């Protein structure tokens, strides 16, 4: 890949017009038989970690052995994240959409012999509805998918991200061709304005307004102007952007090229966190293949417009997802945020007008252009148009990637699509917006998931991580977790954040040990206000949000910690003891053997007892006990 243009000297694949692109799409579709069976294996990061490459190898080996006729042998396609992560590794048989879940390499032969050769579904690999046990055959019928509206994710799980022909067959780059051949840059900006698209990275700033301000800045200051993709997705539990970059990199590229055309940018940057090597690899492949076809680089589609992009890797700093720190990082300096009294659209990268948008925001652009602002603004709700991708994680049955129109209630996402909390109890709270966000308690489960409703409830949309909590999650512990995370990630430049987050975390540490007073809670709120008001950037100013919202909705839990020295959720180690229920204990000695501190006494066949003074609350005994006799007090 040292000189991607070397290929052009030998054979020129470059498309030279919108017509060329359409002709290529037609050509690709003509060579593909839509009825030919295709075995699709999910190669998103989650399923890969769960062993899906071995499943793919096993299926390939089984196909080779099966001796199927060359004309009818099914294809194997590896795709990005299918979304239903808790059921992985996932294998789909298309076109019928037969949905196999939790597939192991040993299942490869059976899938080939029974499903491919004989056309029989394998019942034990099919999804079953939790309430009735009824078997569901296809992905279209599974409630997890049926209740979603997969717009941004529409290609992911269907295309091979390392084959641009798949993207083109699916209509990729048609929006770019339309923009370059039939729209002026001003018309592109107007379309984005009218769509109502708001930034998907967390703050929800109207994208069209950002582009418009950039156009004005360029009119005043001239070029260069830069366009940048924020691929530094750092919120714990968030993997929306990772999935989009891995699974449909061309959506991001196409959106970026359209934006560059609108703003007159010749150079763009993809800032991707170093912890996403698969996303980087797929973006590099996509860039190479797009350049080959003349969709990126010099004279795109012979339009006279030239634009190219490079990837800048992060290096392990959450703060580099903050726009000004991201810029200093690209500039080769440490990622320290700069004060934002002059907006980045006027002075961004190297002091030049710069438009930075999130991965998901850019990925929305092609469909807004091809289907129009009217179509897009018809999705969602008036001030939050379109859809949002969420990573639904935590104490929820259906962990995975969910896309819904803006405005659906929290309960629909968590209970209907997510299948509720394992065990069936109502959820305690849902954390949205990551370390910058807040909790939505169960009483507010009908809150609409849109920018303004979530902000009014004290939380925020954030990047899309949705962490479900149940009664076994302690809000004080959750507050400590997010503060510890931000303490680690603070750039350290300003005092309210560098000193304040640690001081806040120390107060919460005390609460978790049953130390402190109700007055400390008031001090904590006052200090949190100072951190919110005084911090230089949004990392610091939003850091108190999880603590403040949990105090707002769960104050009694905080008071239980400081006044009664109790942790109602049974989490804070200093406030809980483990007890063996004498009614259930069978005296088997298993727990006593596993205990790392020798705290458990009791003869064989007699009730065992845990010494609370020796117990370090590691929980190993509880995991070991086969009759569930060990409980948290």
């Amino acid at each position, binding site marked *: 890949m040292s000189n991607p243009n070397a290929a052009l000297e030998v054979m020129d694949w470059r498309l030279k017009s919108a017509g060329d692109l359409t002709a290529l799409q037609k050509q690709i579709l003509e060579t593909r038989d839509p009825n030919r069976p295709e075995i699709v294996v999910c190669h998103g990061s989650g399923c890969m970690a769960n062993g899906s490459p071995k499943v793919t190898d096993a299926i390939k080996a089984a196909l080779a052995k099966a001796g199927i006729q060359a004309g009818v042998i099914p294809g194997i396609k590896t795709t990005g994240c299918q979304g239903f992560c808790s059921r992985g590794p996932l294998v789909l048989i298309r076109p019928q959409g037969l949905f196999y879940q939790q597939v192991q390499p040993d299942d490869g032969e059976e899938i080939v012999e029974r499903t491919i050769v004989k056309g029989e579904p394998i019942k034990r690999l099919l999804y079953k509805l939790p309430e009735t046990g009824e078997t569901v055959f296809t992905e279209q019928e599974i409630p997890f998918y049926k209740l979603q509206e997969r717009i941004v994710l529409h290609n992911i799980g269907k295309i091979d991200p390392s084959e641009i022909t798949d993207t083109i067959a699916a209509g990729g780059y048609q929006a770019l061709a339309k923009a370059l051949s039939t729209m002026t840059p001003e018309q592109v900006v107007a379309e984005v304005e009218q769509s109502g698209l708001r930034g998907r990275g967390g703050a929800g700033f109207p994208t069209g307004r950002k582009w418009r301000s950039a156009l004005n800045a360029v009119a005043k200051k001239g070029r260069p102007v830069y366009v940048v993709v924020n691929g530094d997705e750092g919120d714990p539990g968030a993997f929306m952007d990772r999935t989009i970059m891995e699974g449909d990199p061309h959506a991001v590229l196409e959106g970026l090229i359209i934006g560059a055309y609108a703003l007159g940018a010749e150079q763009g940057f993809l800032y991707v966190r170093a912890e996403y090597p698969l996303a980087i690899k797929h973006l590099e492949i996509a860039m190479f293949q797009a350049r080959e076809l003349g969709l990126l680089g010099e004279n795109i589609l012979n339009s006279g417009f030239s634009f190219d992009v490079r990837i800048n890797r992060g290096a392990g700093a959450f703060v580099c997802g903050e726009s000004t720190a991201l810029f200093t990082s690209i500039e080769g300096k440490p990622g320290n945020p700069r004060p934002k009294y002059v907006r980045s659209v006027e002075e961004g990268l190297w002091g030049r007008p710069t438009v930075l948008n999130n991965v998901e925001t850019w990925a929305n652009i092609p469909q807004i252009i091809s289907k129009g602002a009217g179509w897009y603004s018809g999705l969602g709700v008036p001030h939050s148009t379109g859809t949002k991708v969420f990573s639904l994680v935590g104490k929820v049955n259906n962990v995975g990637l969910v896309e819904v129109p803006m405005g659906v209630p929290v309960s629909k996402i968590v209970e209907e699509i997510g299948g509720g909390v394992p065990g069936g109890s109502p959820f305690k709270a849902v954390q949205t917006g990551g370390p910058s966000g807040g909790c939505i308690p169960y009483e507010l489960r009908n809150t609409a998931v849109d920018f303004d409703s979530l902000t009014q409830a004290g939380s925020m949309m954030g990047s899309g991580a949705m962490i479900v909590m149940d009664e076994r999650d302690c809000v004080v512990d959750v507050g400590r977790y997010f503060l510890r995370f931000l303490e680690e990630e603070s750039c*350290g430049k300003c*005092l*309210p954040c560098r*000193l*304040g987050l*640690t001081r806040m975390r120390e107060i919460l540490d005390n609460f978790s040990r049953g130390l402190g007073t109700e007055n400390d809670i008031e001090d904590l709120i006052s200090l949190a206000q100072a951190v919110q008001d*005084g911090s230089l950037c949004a990392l610091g100013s939003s850091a108190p949000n999880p603590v403040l919202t949990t105090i707002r909705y769960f104050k009694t839990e905080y008071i239980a910690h400081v006044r009664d020295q109790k942790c109602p959720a049974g989490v804070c180690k200093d406030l809980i003891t483990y007890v063996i229920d004498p009614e259930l204990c069978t005296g088997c000695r298993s727990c006593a053997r596993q205990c790392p501190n020798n705290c458990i006494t009791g003869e064989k066949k007699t009730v065992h007892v845990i010494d609370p003074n020796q117990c370090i609350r590691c929980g190993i005994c509880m995991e070991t006990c086969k009759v569930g006799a060990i409980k948290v007090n």
Partner: protein
Amino acid sequence: MIEFNINDRKVRAGQGWTILETARHYGLDIPALCYHESVAPSGACRLCMVELREGSWSRLVASCIYPVQQGINVYTETERVQNIRRWIFEMLLAACPASQEIKELAARYGVVSTRFPIHDPDQTCMVCGLCSRVCEEVVGLSAISTVDRGVHKKVSSPFLRPTDICVACGCCVSVCPTGAMQAIFDSVRGEPVMQLTQLTA
């Protein structure tokens, strides 16, 4: 000339002035620790925060870096401003307990004690960055910088080793607001290559 208001009093400033510069020009009191006339302001210590108000709208900004604008209303003693100052001073008293300058400035604003635990009783450096900025902007050597991230941030020379990029000009020591630079300077500069006594031999 730009006209605006500080605490409901009309003031005038030149183009490109900051709120803090204007306030100092008029002898109005706004505390600041990471500010020095010789270097560009960085807005790091946040003690200089002030509140802008327009009807029901308000915004807190760092006055050392906020450029003045026609007609803005700046307030320096609001509840939110005082809250920020109080907590920053309390945290500084705990973080830099050995600095006399911080104790005196905090006392001027009514903060004489701290509820926070003291982890390092000898610490004086508040990592304001003035030393680093003067070495880069005025001296032009960048012999020192703020290194590492977050709570580990500190002032040091490259690779945390003594360096003779530092020419011992003393600018960093003279801009340091807390008296911390003297000790840091010794570790930056290290042992001199030649002792003075040798030269006079």
